[in-house]
């Protein structure tokens, strides 16, 4: 009888220990690691600490061919949240440079970045960019890395490697993919689908949220108005621009479910 009790106790302890280990494997942010996305309605959905995991790979894909710029805008906005004034390394594949050109420095404040933050890798092959991403993730002065690829996504192994690198150093990678590249499966912590919506807004869908205690409703979606029409933005007020107060979520409507 006593032995049985002892065994049960042991089993419970083992299960607890394994659970603890699992939690480590699962990418659940602790309070210090959660970074708010900048949109209140979205943050409300991100349990338990209402933020995105700092040491994670966040994948943002365009819904349609024409939505790459919107996806990149959302990605840059997240990067600004993560970087918090530190340097942002952005990399662009050659194809993407040919298709959309390069980020325009004078427009960076609209997504909450200032150009002094930006270090840009202007057109390289994807393998080179992946290498550069890993190097940049290892640099303590870098706040966030953004990787933009239009037609080619890193394969699962590569993304798993990057995801683990992010986890190890506690720095985020924002992977912006075009509609064609977005079909591939990657080991991302979160996956967002962005499409441009009328009236200067984005349609945001959260397609995957790994390691969340409370799963988001399937196909959680929002229509996000990142800018008020008359929002004074200059280099000095950039940091204000990215705070949740000044970024309004105009309407919160769940698509599907």
């Amino acid at each position, binding site marked *: 009888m006593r032995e049985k009790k002892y065994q049960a106790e042991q089993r419970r302890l083992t299960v607890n220990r394994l659970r603890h280990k699992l939690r480590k494997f699962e990418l659940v942010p602790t309070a210090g690691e959660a970074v708010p996305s900048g949109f209140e309605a979205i943050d409300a959905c991100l349990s338990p600490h209402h933020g995105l995991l700092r040491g994670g790979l966040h994948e943002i894909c365009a819904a*349609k061919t*024409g*939505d790459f*710029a*919107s996806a*990149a*805008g*959302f990605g*840059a906005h997240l990067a600004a949240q993560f970087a918090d004034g530190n*340097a942002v*390394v952005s990399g662009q594949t050659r194809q993407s*440079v*040919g298709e*959309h*050109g*390069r*980020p*325009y*420095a*004078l*427009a*960076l*404040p*609209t*997504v909450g970045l200032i*150009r*002094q933050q*930006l*270090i*840009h*890798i*202007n*057109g*390289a092959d994807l393998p*080179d960019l992946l*290498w*550069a991403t890993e*190097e*940049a993730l290892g*640099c*303590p*002065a*870098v706040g966030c890395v953004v990787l933009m690829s239009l037609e080619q996504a890193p394969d699962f192994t590569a993304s798993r490697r990057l995801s683990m690198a992010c986890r190890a150093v506690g720095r985020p990678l924002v992977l912006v993919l075009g509609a064609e590249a977005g079909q591939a499966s990657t080991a991302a912590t979160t996956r967002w689908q962005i*499409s*441009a*919506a*009328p*009236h*200067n*807004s*984005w*349609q945001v869908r959260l397609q995957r949220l790994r390691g969340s205690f409370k799963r988001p409703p399937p196909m959680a979606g929002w229509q996000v108005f*990142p*800018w008020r029409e008359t*929002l004074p*933005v*200059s*280099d000095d007020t950039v940091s204000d621009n990215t705070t949740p107060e000044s970024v309004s979520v105009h309407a919160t409507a769940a698509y599907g479910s």
Partner: protein
Amino acid sequence: MPQSTPHVPPQVPVLPALDTAPTGRRIVAIWFPHWLSEIVMPAEKRDAPFVLAEHQRGTQRLAAVNIAAEACGLYTGMALADARALVPDMHIEMLDPAWGVAALDKCARWLRRYTPWVGADTHPDSHGLLLDISGCAHLFGGERRMLDDMRARFNRRGITCCIAVADTIGSAWALAHYGPDSLIIAPSGHGADAVMDLPPGALRLPEDACDLCRRLGLDSVAALAAFPRTSLTRRFGPYPVMRLEQALGQAGEMLNPCVPAPEFIVRENLAQGITQLDVIASLTQNMCATLAAKLFAAGQGATRLDLVLTRADNEMQALSVRLAAPSAEADHLARLLATRLERMSRGFDAGCGVETLCLAASATADVITPQAPLTLGHKAFKAPPVAVLASLFDRLAGRLGPQVVVRPVVHASHIPEHAVGYRPVHAAPLSGEADDAGLSTATAPEPQTRPLFMLCAPEPIEVIAEIPEGAPYRFRWRRVLHEVARAQGPERISPEWWPSARRHNSLTRDYFRVEDRNGCRFWIYRDGLYGRETGRVRWFMHGVFP
């Protein structure tokens, strides 16, 4: 003895001049006849007689005289006491032999604006420089213009110079020192003809050989050249004959460029040639440690590294690495070189083995060690971690290429594509602050009015607009038709009239921000004002908004 009368045989087999045309070598010789006096004397006192004196064989003798003193009858080598008797009120200064050499070295560096190949004149008692200008003259509009420019710049500094250009070092030197004019251009391929009339001293002969020529009645180069070489050699020895042949282009002569030797250099000579690149890499790592220690001791950091691998058959392979910020960290330097060696491995041919490795920090700068922040009662200031970022830049630029890793810079221009540029991280200041002095916040456009992505070049689009001056109604870009749902504009940007060279398309642009029915936003513009600047307006896509 009279038996050696200069008897010129009529048919002497004259060696044909080496064919200089294919190589096209052109040498400039510059001679500064009053170098010492002119560099020591301030320019405004040039008119007064001025001499430099030095101790020579127990007496004080004149080492250099300026033009005014020369006109009074003073000459180099004259006893100072005699000179004083002739010109009592002259200005005298004692000579420091280091002056002339140092100034000449400085001058040689300056002359590298004309050609990278500048060498010192090896002749004693002559202050001069030699320049190999092969393939450089056209950059200055031809030899005449180049030399005129050179002479004008020297004259402006009050320095007298005699300049000559010819196919060989010997003939150029001869024309500069003994030529009839202070600027002589010997036509290519005929340099030997120009020196024929000059005295034998023009061949850079030692004093005793010149004396012998004089005694033999050989008063010109032509007279010397007419002799068979064997008899000349018998009488003068091999050296004057070599000089003669060098002047005539029948023997080669090298010009040694005076390149400043790198101060921080590590050399590794191996007993046996090595062929494995990984061994080279590990050797390089050790050398980096030595180099870094040298740099650190001097308070310097390398901004450029050069590694030269010399094979046993004297083939050399070089690679160089640039750094964003001066660094004296052995690990960092080694890692950069390892990246480059790894990349080189594809085209590397060790041949019979690398015997010598030479690692030099060819450009260095002071390392500024940041002071630790003082935290007494204050919140610690978060300084930008320049060194950390710099090492990242070096690694990225080392593999991806220096032109690929860039930072945005802003220029004072209204034309959107000229207002923003990208500069390689090695060229841009690391702090990123001091680069937008020309841009005031008043003229900077509102960020919302600019697209997040700007196309590399504006792309023409087909537009249907209701009126020529109005916003588009629908447009086709890259074969996709977009129905415009909303449009904002126009924002009129006039061409900049102040740049001297008119830009390629200098028409007024009217920019519109348009949103299509899907919500995609574009930045398009109409090139030219309808009816005023152009009869047929053209539309362009210039960027996409997020």
